[in-house]
């Protein structure tokens, strides 16, 4: 018998599928033939027969009872193609034979055989399985078993535990239910595993989605497990070249099938969750290329040697230097001499680049590693005077500076002379220069950072230099760092004042920030807050700014003015009375009254002062005052009439 001859049988059933039962019976004995080709053919033919749409369920059921022994032989086969077909076939016959046993309580042997077949087939579903065809068939079989062994009230033709008559001597629903629940958990556990294999993923995904359709009661559990899946955080089992394409396929599967699930509203409570998940997937892919590269590097065995971030010790840990003359660089060197890094001349770098590299390396350095490195270098340094060696600089093209030979200098020989003292004018000039430099440096920095924030100062100065960072530094320095009446303070205040006044609309936030710092230092931190607000620096500065700003306001600036007055930490009578001018201006009086009304409503401590001002204005005959007074101080309005 040869495959060519058997293919003749295949041609016959293709012409007339009704002949399947007859031919299947004829080929069952091939299942234990020694020739692999024949067994493969036999297994594939069985799958074709059971998958044939032309055979009725009853015929297939009878055929399944007859083929069970052959299937049991094939499921013990060692060829992966035979196994793939045999497990696929088990998936098809399981519901047929289950329903057969349901109606025939006396088929004890058949039920035992079926359970044995199921057990042997599922035994091939393991992490060691390297044939994905077998894994895919096992996943599908597990899905079929979950489907059959669940309690769902089933429609006609659907096989489930609902088909089992009560008191069936062979089938124990509780046991089968528990088995199904275990299998479902195993199917779903794949979505949280660290490894990703496209075929395995798609097989699992398709299997559980068909469960959502056939057993809606399992839908929420399944969908919530699938939504925990994150393809970007997986280790890919395919080759590095195939990672991009694999991710693309996974995304497409998720989008296509979860999209269909959401579209048909099959798991209503998760529909919006699915839509959010899909939006995240398509959004995340845009910048995922970086993460993908990172994963590749990790996977490469070559890369592991240079990964130092996680190590707590440097590559070279020796604390003793070799004999003879040693270049100075060796004192500090913590990498191999033949490492490319050791040959690199850092002088080639531009100063600003070098500083940037050093700063960012320090900020990201592993603290333990850094400590270890420093202690190694320190021990080497200590060992130098003991051995009395002279440690020389490496020979260089440019003549080395004064330290031709460097022995560790004794501390007492080291002296830096004190710099000459500055006079007050010099201090003021230097301060202004300093603040201007800070401001200039900030111009190139990113501007996105907002001013508020608990750790704004620390963050802006230590971690990230942003466009507004100099304001933090300058305003904190002027309010707390230097004596209030010093030359330096005045210089910084003038600079800040000029800065905010130049474009007060855009720099309102900065203005409030600075003045808040002043107020906080003066009224909260200081032990003796000034009782007379005329002596308060905060009020001096606020008065100075208000005097400068008010004449320049236009009617369209009402939001700016209200915001400024409402965000200042404190207002006194003098400041509020500065609004008198604007209220009397026929063109802009609305601006002033609106601000006063806002303060009355939302800043109660200023209410009396505002109403006093309004009363005065009312007496002077201003138009807008009456309406506000009627509401908040009616007696002031009625007085003259009375």
């Amino acid at each position: 018998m040869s495959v060519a001859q058997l293919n003749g049988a295949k041609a016959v059933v293709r012409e007339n599928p009704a002949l399947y039962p007859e031919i299947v019976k004829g080929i069952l004995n091939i299942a234990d033939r020694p020739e692999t080709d024949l067994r493969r053919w036999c297994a594939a033919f069985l799958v074709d027969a059971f998958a044939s749409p032309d055979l009725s369920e009853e015929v297939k059921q009878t055929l399944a009872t007859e083929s069970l022994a052959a299937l049991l032989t094939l499921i013990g086969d060692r060829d992966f193609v035979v196994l793939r077909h045999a497990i696929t076939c088990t998936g098809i016959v399981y519901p047929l034979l289950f329903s057969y046993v349901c109606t025939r309580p006396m088929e004890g042997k058949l039920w035992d055989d079926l359970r044995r077949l199921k057990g042997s087939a599922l035994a091939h579903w393991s992490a060691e399985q390297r044939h994905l065809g077998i894994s895919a068939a096992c996943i599908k079989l597990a899905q079929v078993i979950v489907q059959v062994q669940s309690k769902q009230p089933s429609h006609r033709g659907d096989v489930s535990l609902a088909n089992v008559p009560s008191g069936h001597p062979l089938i124990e629903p509780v046991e089968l239910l528990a088995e199904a629940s275990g299998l479902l958990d195993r199917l779903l556990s794949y979505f949280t595993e660290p490894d990703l294999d496209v075929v395995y993923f798609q097989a699992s995904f398709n299997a559980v989605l068909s469960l959502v359709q056939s057993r809606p009661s399992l839908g929420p559990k399944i969908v919530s497990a699938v939504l925990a899946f994150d393809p970007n955080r997986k280790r890919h089992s395919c080759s590095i070249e195939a990672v991009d394409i694999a991710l693309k396929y996974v995304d497409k599967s998720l989008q296509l099938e979860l999209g269909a699930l959401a579209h048909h509203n099959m798991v209503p409570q998760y529909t919006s969750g699915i839509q959010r998940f899909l939006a995240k997937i398509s959004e995340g892919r845009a910048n995922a290329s970086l993460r993908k590269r990172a994963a590749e590097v990790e996977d490469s065995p070559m890369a592991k040697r240079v990964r130092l971030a996680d190590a707590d010790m440097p590559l070279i840990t020796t604390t003793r230097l070799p004999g003879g003359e040693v270049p100075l660089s060796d004192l500090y060197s913590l990498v191999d001499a033949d490492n490319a890094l050791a040959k690199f001349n850092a002088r080639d770098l531009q100063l600003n680049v070098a500083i940037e590299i050093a700063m960012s390396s320090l900020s990201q350095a592993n603290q333990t590693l850094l400590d270890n490195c420093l202690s190694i270098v320190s021990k080497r340094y200590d060992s130098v005077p003991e051995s009395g060696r002279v440690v020389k600089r490496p020979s260089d093209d440019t003549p080395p500076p004064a330290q031709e030979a460097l022995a560790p200098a004794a501390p007492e020989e080291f002296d830096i002379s004190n710099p000459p003292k500055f006079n007050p004018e010099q201090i003021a000039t230097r301060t202004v220069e300093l603040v201007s430099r800070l401001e200039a440096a900030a111009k190139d920095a990113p501007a996105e950072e907002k001013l508020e924030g608990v750790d704004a100062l620390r963050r802006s100065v230590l971690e990230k230099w942003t466009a507004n960072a100099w304001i933090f530094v300058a305003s904190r320095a002027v309010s707390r760092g230097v004596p209030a009446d010093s030359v330096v303070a005045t210089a910084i205040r003038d600079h800040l004042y000029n800065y905010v006044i130049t474009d007060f609309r855009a720099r309102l936030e900065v203005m409030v920030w600075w003045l808040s710092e002043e107020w906080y230092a003066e009224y909260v931190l200081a032990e003796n807050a000034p009782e007379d607000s005329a002596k308060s620096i905060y009020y001096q500065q606020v008065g100075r700014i208000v005097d400068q700003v008010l004449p320049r306001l236009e009617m369209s600036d009402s939001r700016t003015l209200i915001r400024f007055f409402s965000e200042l930490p404190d207002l006194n009578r003098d400041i509020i009375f500065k609004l008198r001018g604007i209220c009397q201006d026929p063109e802009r009086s609305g601006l002033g009254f609106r601000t006063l009304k806002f303060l009355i409503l939302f800043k109660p401590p200023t209410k009396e002062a505002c109403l006093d001002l309004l009363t005065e204005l009312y007496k002077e005959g201003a138009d807008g005052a009456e309406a506000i007074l009627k509401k908040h101080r009616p007696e002031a309005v009625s007085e003259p009439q009375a």
Partner: protein
Amino acid sequence: MSQEVKPVIHTFACPPHLRPKSSKKSPSPSSSNPGSPALGPNKSRLKFLKSPILRARSLVTPPTSPELFSLPKPKRMPEENKKLMQFCTVCASNQNRSMAAHLLLKENGFNVASFGTGSTVRLPGPAIDKPVVYQFNVPYNEMYRELSTRDTRLYTANGVLNMLDRNRRIKDHPERWQDQNQVFDVVFTCQERCFDSVCIDLLHRGAKLSRPVHVINVEIEDNHVEAAAGADAILELANMICQSPDPDTEIIEILSAWQKTHQKLPSLYQMCYF
């Protein structure tokens, strides 16, 4: 128009790791005996055998378990695979792209069928907004006769008659994917929309037959030149699949290798069940 199909000599660039394995290669454990502990200690090694680098390395370090050597080696000749596997090609109208690929695969000895996923068969008509519309069960021959009597010059010039003439020699009439119940091992679709339709249709069928199927989309533009080029590319991919001893396991590597030489034909892949 690919009515006269040139004999195609395929020298495809199959990367070394995808070529059929020689007998020297490491035996592939099939783990057929669930009771055997042979695969247990080699778990990690086996897991990464899929990576070509590590697979190459496994040649140097032989597996420690002697049982691994006794396992049967997978060997299947490509010609044999062609006969064992059922292929099909799918486009929108089962006229141009799927039929070009159908013909080429058939000529190269594959078991192949072809389908369309659209609601009707649409052919280019006198204007871009006036297509000729047929139902799926109308034979190619009938379409050919009707269109040649309607306007021979037009339908010869736009290539429709040539295409119909080719198609009527391949099969009787265009078939609709959603209206058939055949099973396949590999489905090639020629457009993302068709790929979506096939996958969703398979999902809605409920996967009652448990049969795994590889659905592969090769994005081909719907014109005669691109259809011919796309058919060549599909044939190349089908050959690569048949040459693999274990296409289920290697399919992603195969697609990745194929995609490298066909950058202009973006692919999609989904493992589904019938």
